[in-house]
């Protein structure tokens, strides 16, 4: 913070006045506001599970972006001769760390290469749901009246559709078109939660004094929404976004497990688990390792969401 204020005499006296300020002490002086994100980062650094989830997420990101550094794509397909039927259902060994599946493919390589589709689906679906949900929520909450009634009823319709049920129907109707179908379903059925959340924070924020002040100063609706309402709604929306990343990873796996998501020859954790179900009783490793990676990924995003929520919500901070 001292470099931020360097050159200013005010800051010099401020620094001189607080010689024993160390990093563990909370800075509450109004002359040094950290802002929303700075505040969140301050809280995050002190949460142990933030670091654990960060390490896990970085790992998952690494195997999604560069699977070739970790495993061999050859060993995931019979077409390239990487899987030999004589290697079928071998238990874990030094050659096949996670064993082999029915076709003799290396489960370790399958698991590493199965990460990318789940992660890509989750990221795109999260960005789209947050964007759509935030826009609809702010418009409905800010303008109110008939527009709010209309948008709220539409929200209710989608809220009445369970994601799994609606997803199965839509994906079957589309003829199971693969990953894009899953992303489409997750966005169409998933924006509702964010919209409701943003709407309620908007309604809360729009009657506050700072919004009235801004309006009295002649600010346009668009400016009020962007500069005053949005920052207030952002905190909860970020939390929902991080948690839904985990939820969408699980959802992609569920649809692929049901055969409605990713289509062969491509594969993801969900479809690997689905293929493993027939041999699971005799070769549990075929299901265990992809399921472990899937679970740990979801867990990492949930923990990260918890950490972000705790650090963004001043009411929870001690």
């Amino acid at each position, binding site marked *: 913070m001292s470099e931020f204020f360097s050159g200013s005499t005010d800051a010099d006296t401020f620094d001189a006045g607080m010689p024993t300020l160390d990093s563990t002490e909370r800075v509450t002086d109004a002359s040094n506001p950290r802002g929303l994100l700075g505040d969140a980062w301050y809280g995050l650094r002190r949460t142990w599970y933030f670091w654990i989830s960060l390490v896990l997420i970085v790992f998952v990101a690494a195997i999604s972006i560069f699977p070739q550094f970790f495993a061999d794509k050859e060993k995931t397909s019979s077409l390239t001769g990487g899987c030999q039927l004589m290697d079928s259902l071998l238990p874990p060994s030094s050659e096949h760390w996670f064993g082999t599946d029915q076709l003799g493919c290396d489960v370790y390589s399958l698991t590493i290469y199965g990460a990318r589709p789940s992660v890509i689906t989750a990221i795109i679906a999260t960005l789209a749901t947050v964007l759509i949900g935030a826009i609809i929520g702010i418009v409905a909450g800010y303008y109110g009246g008939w527009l709010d009634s209309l948008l709220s*009823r*539409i929200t*209710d*319709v989608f809220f*009445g*559709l*369970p994601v*799994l*049920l*609606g997803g*199965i*129907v*839509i994906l*079957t*109707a589309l*003829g199971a078109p693969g990953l894009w179908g899953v992303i489409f379903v997750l966005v169409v059925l998933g924006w509702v939660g964010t919209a409701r959340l943003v709407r309620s924070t908007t309604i809360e924020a729009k009657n506050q004094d700072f919004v009235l002040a801004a309006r009295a100063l002649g600010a346009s609706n668009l400016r009020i929404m962007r500069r005053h309402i949005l920052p207030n709604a952002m905190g909860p929306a970020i939390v929902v976004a991080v948690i839904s990343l*985990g939820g969408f990873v*699980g959802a992609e*796996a*569920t649809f692929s*497990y*049901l055969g409605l998501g990713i289509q062969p020859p491509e594969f993801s954790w*969900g479809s690997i*688990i689905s293929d493993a*179900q027939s041999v*699971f*009783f005799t070769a*549990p490793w075929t*299901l265990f390792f992809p*399921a472990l990676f*899937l*679970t*740990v990924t*979801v*867990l990492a995003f*949930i*923990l990260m969401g918890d950490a972000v929520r705790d650090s963004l919500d001043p009411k929870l901070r001690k």
Partner: protein
Amino acid sequence: MGRYAVRRILQMIPVFFGTTFLIYAMMFALPGDPVRNLTVGKQTNPVYLEYIREQFNLNQPFIIQYLDYLKGILTLDFGKTFNGTPVLEIFQQRWPVSVTLALTAFGLEVLFGIGFGIWAALRKGKVFDHLSLSGTLIVVAVPVFVLGYVAQWVFGVKLGWVAPAGIQDGWPKSYIVPAAVLASLSLAYALRLTRQSLLEAFNSDYVRTAKAKGLPARTILRRYSLRNSLIPVVTFLGADLATLMGGAVITEGIFNIPGIGQQLYQSIRLHESVVVVGIVTVLVIIYLFANLIVDLLYGVLDPRIRYE
């Protein structure tokens, strides 16, 4: 409260139409001609195909078909499948199984969710509290189909306590493991919710007052802390019961339980839109009414809440 209930029911009407319309439209958009699908690979008299289309109203425009369908529902006529079985008959076979499963799961959820939640709150920071918190976190993260297979393998195959699949052993033996799998996610939420709201109540002024009056700890828990902190839990459970009824597609599939979820999945695969729309319609109605009851329950449980 009466006026509030009436207004809420009126608001449910557009939601009901919207949801059923959406599902009906989606089933209508399913690729392929349903009549042609029935006669794959066979030479069929076109007059006969025309007859079937006429009989099932398939020649009418979409909107007429939809309105016709709604008219049937009002008289509890959910239509017939193409092989002539009334959908209502399928319901009569399938719903009892799913309701049994859902209620068993619900029982586990109430018993262990609330019970362990209270215990964890009373032992805050102790071993059981940490165990339950990390345990629930893992349950939330494990996808239900993984949990289902693991439970089936452990209890059905390794330990051999129950048959791995099917309902031939009746209740409770055949239902307990699938119900536990079905309940696991909501149980975890219920546990965390109970613990959290109970801890909030422990810090409240009225509990401090009760303590200062010298009331025994048991009385404070029962009459003061629990009563207030269970309000969010009860409302969560209420909404969840509806979800349990329809959310068993995967669990019923893994454990081969002939309930509504399995029927739904099969019917979607077979493009039997009458059955799909029927099931989803009933589920939506259950869901809407569960939410209404929950909202009304708020006011009964917490007299401070007033309906406009």
